[in-house]
């Protein structure tokens, strides 16, 4: 569904509402994914859907209703349901007015026609490139090739009418040998720049190089996390920058705004217009999204807000609302860790003894305020000795405070966009001292 049709639908929906204030979100998704294992496609899927969500506000009372039927009767019904729910809801004195919007500009390149038009044969060709490398090296492969076109339109009774269209293309490849595995990924808005052959070669090289892994003792190590691994860690810091978590005290940043808590080399932004992010310039309430430094030279600079939390805390609305209803508060959507000066090779060369980590798995919070997380290494874990890679090691479990990690780190030069999350995380590699491993596994 193109933006013009979404805008017509959103405007038509608003016209049916007699609530004091109404917001309509029309979202559209046309996605396909080809998934394989052992050089067979076991899942080749495509789906298309459009959803209309209505937020009706009567005084301080709010109701939300949603449907994926767009005929006039269904639209009238969803508006009525939202209004009826609002009538029965308790009043919230802190409920602010809906945003009035403002000028926004979608970053060029967010929507790529070639990605939107990619078909099953396009994805099959990407997968076939993986298969040929696996067969050549007598490995087996597992992964996916995915393309999607998504758009959303926000309209409200304050005159907001904003639309965004974007595309994503992603590949994810794991190569397996008898006793080792390797991983690579690539993501872009443009399917033509996703290089399956290069990713397959990287994953295969890691599987070959880390075969016959040795055991090392857990304890405190110097580690280098490649970007996909660092993105997994950083994802667990993102919610700390929500104004809700900040106010309620579950964030490390609570009471720390303006204070320097990390090394001066650490700067983290939320930036929808970064060339590797290319996301919407407004949030799901239609408020313009600000490009913000969250951390600047180690100091906590900002938390993100939406209309509710901006009003409640008397802050500016930074335009980071999630779709209503949202009990999670505003959230960063496009984390970008600013790069350092050394390539990953230079970070390795400067390490006397350490571990290079390609990817992390099952990271979970152990302690919220200290941002201690646990998780496992996977798919390409190397020993570093005297500045050189020295073969594979068996995977390890870590228990590490992200806060402590960012106090003793060196950042890499080259930025990478992770494919793991629907929102983007852009990171360089990172070298961390005294990274805490607590145990090992048997592979």
């Amino acid at each position, binding site marked *: 569904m193109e933006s013009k049709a979404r805008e017509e639908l959103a405007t038509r929906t608003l016209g049916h509402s007699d609530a004091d204030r109404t917001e309509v979100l029309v979202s559209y998704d046309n996605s396909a994914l080809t998934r394989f294992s052992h050089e067979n496609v076991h899942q080749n899927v495509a789906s298309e859907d459009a959803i209309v969500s209505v937020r009706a506000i009567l005084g301080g009372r709010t109701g939300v209703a949603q449907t994926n039927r767009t005929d006039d009767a269904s639209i009238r019904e969803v508006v009525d349901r939202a209004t009826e729910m609002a009538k029965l809801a308790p009043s919230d004195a802190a409920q602010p007015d809906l945003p009035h919007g403002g000028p926004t500009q979608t970053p060029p390149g967010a929507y790529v026609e070639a990605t939107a038009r990619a078909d099953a044969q396009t994805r099959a060709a990407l997968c076939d490139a993986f298969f040929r490398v696996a067969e050549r090296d007598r490995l087996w492969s597992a992964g996916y090739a995915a393309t999607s076109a998504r758009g959303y339109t926000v309209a409200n009774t304050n005159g907001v009418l904003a639309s965004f269209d974007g595309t994503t293309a992603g590949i994810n490849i794991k190569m397996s040998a008898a006793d080792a595995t390797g991983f690579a990924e690539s993501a872009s808005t443009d399917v033509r720049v996703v290089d399956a052959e290069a990713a397959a070669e990287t994953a295969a090289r890691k599987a070959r190089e880390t075969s016959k892994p040795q055991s090392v003792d857990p304890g405190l190590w110097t580690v280098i996390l490649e970007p996909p691994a660092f993105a997994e860690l950083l994802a667990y810091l993102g919610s700390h920058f929500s104004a809700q978590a900040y106010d309620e005290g579950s964030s490390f940043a609570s009471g720390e705004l303006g204070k320097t808590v990390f090394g001066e080399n650490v700067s983290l932004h939320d930036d929808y217009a970064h060339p590797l992010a290319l996301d919407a310039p407004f949030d799901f309430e239609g408020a313009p999204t600000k490009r913000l430094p969250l951390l600047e030279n180690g100091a906590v600079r900002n938390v993100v807000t939406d209309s509710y939390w901006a009003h409640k805390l008397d802050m500016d609305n930074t335009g980071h609302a999630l779709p209503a209803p949202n009990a999670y508060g505003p959230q960063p959507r496009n984390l970008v860790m600013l790069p350092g000066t050394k390539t990953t090779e230079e970070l390795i060369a400067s390490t006397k003894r350490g571990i290079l980590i390609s990817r992390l798995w099952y990271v979970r919070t152990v302690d919220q305020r200290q941002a201690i997380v646990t*998780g496992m290494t996977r798919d390409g874990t190397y020993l570093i000795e005297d500045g050189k890679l020295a073969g594979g090691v068996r995977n390890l479990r870590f228990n590490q405070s992200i806060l402590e990690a960012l106090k003793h780190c060196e950042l890499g030069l080259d930025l990478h966009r992770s494919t793991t999350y629907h929102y983007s995380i852009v990171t360089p590699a990172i070298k961390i001292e005294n990274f805490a491993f607590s145990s090992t596994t048997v592979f």
Partner: protein
Amino acid sequence: MSFDGLAQRALDTAAGRGSRYTDIRFDVARSERIEVRNGVVAALADGTSSGYGIRALVDGTWGFAAGSEMTDTAIDTVAARAVAMAKAAASIARNPLGAAPAHAYVDVFKAPMVRDPATVPLGERVALLLEAERLLHVGDEIAVGRAWIDLWRTDKIFYSSIGSRIEQQLHQTGSGIAAMAVGDGDAQTRSFPGDIGLYMTGGWEVVERARLRENAARIGEEARALLKAPQCPSGTFDIILGGSQVSLQIHESCGHPAELDRVMGWEANFSGTSFLEIAQLDKLQYGSANVTIEIDNRLPGGMATCGYDDEGTKSGKSDIVRNGILVGYESSNDTARAIGRESNGCVRAQSWEFVPMIRMCNLNLLPGDVPFENLFDDVKDGIYMESNRSWSIDDRRLNFQFGCEIGWEVKNGKRGRMLKNPTYAGMTPAFWNACDAIGDRFSWFPWGTPNCGKGEPMQIGRTTQAAAPARFRNIAVGVGYGV
């Protein structure tokens, strides 16, 4: 609800384009979420979603396409897309495994429900949560109180080109409360029931059974007390886990590794593989002789309870671990056939938009014969832990580390002082072989999980792991704090 005309058209269109077997599943899903947070209704939302997903099989390879437009033209387009997807996959497949199901059924299944939540006025539903949430605030330390209800109703009809027509109606319901206390640079959370609430197949009776108002003040007090409780010690201890934590332990260390698609490498790039290799079937000493784990997809109240799975296989019982020995897997038609067995009906799709795949269903640890209070007997120096807070396991499901919201010392068979931040860790087979006692049927409960993630694109599954509290000897405790 009937989609007979559209279904036949889809089956005919797909066959005409070369599909050897086709099925189509129509879903009409209704959902309601109410969440109260710090006295404010933070979510009051109602949703409907309807559509259909079509599977087509060409040259041993599957294609899947989904759409929501209920017209002849749209059905033709989506059916053709499913066949095109299958053909594209077949063009690069090296050793296709897909095969059509062998059995067809014509049936109707309705999951039992005592009281339809729709008969409870919305104002009453909201009022219950407002009161329960208010009762959590036992002191200024309670920074966040939450109370919630989830209601789901799914009507679906499955049609296949070998003659199945299966109509099902499922009601699933959940509710819970949680309090977060903040003070002295610490944040501690207590939740009830379990760690995510009480989730079961059924109606309003599930919300009543949760007894949110009756337990709210205790939960608030425990959250507040945790701020001042001593840190759980590190070392090797006997541990007793509460029922909901045992449920999660089964989920992560048996439910996921016993998924046969994972065993065969289909999840390798994301969720990982499994240590439960096919060569180990009927041989591996997975756990002690106390440990029997079975699938029961007709379990009353189970979140995965249904008449048939989403590729038309009839629900029933089957064994995964019998007296400690690995004896089975959760399977689909394709995967079961690959190891010379028949599917045990563990295929589910999140909704019409998603392809059916193997999902953990009702996978239960059978109760033992020890009354709950006797699990503490002859524990000289141990820890009792309740309600999960953190969970992580490696990508073959061996090395795990879990944390709970709350713990208590156990000294000489008696429960003592409260402990905060309890964690424990181990390797899966060693851990289950250290299980020397399981609570009896009076402490056994079908703990439901509404949000199990798997697959790419990620699908959210609803599953139950019925469990009783259980005792484990010589376990590593206190991992993660000071390493």
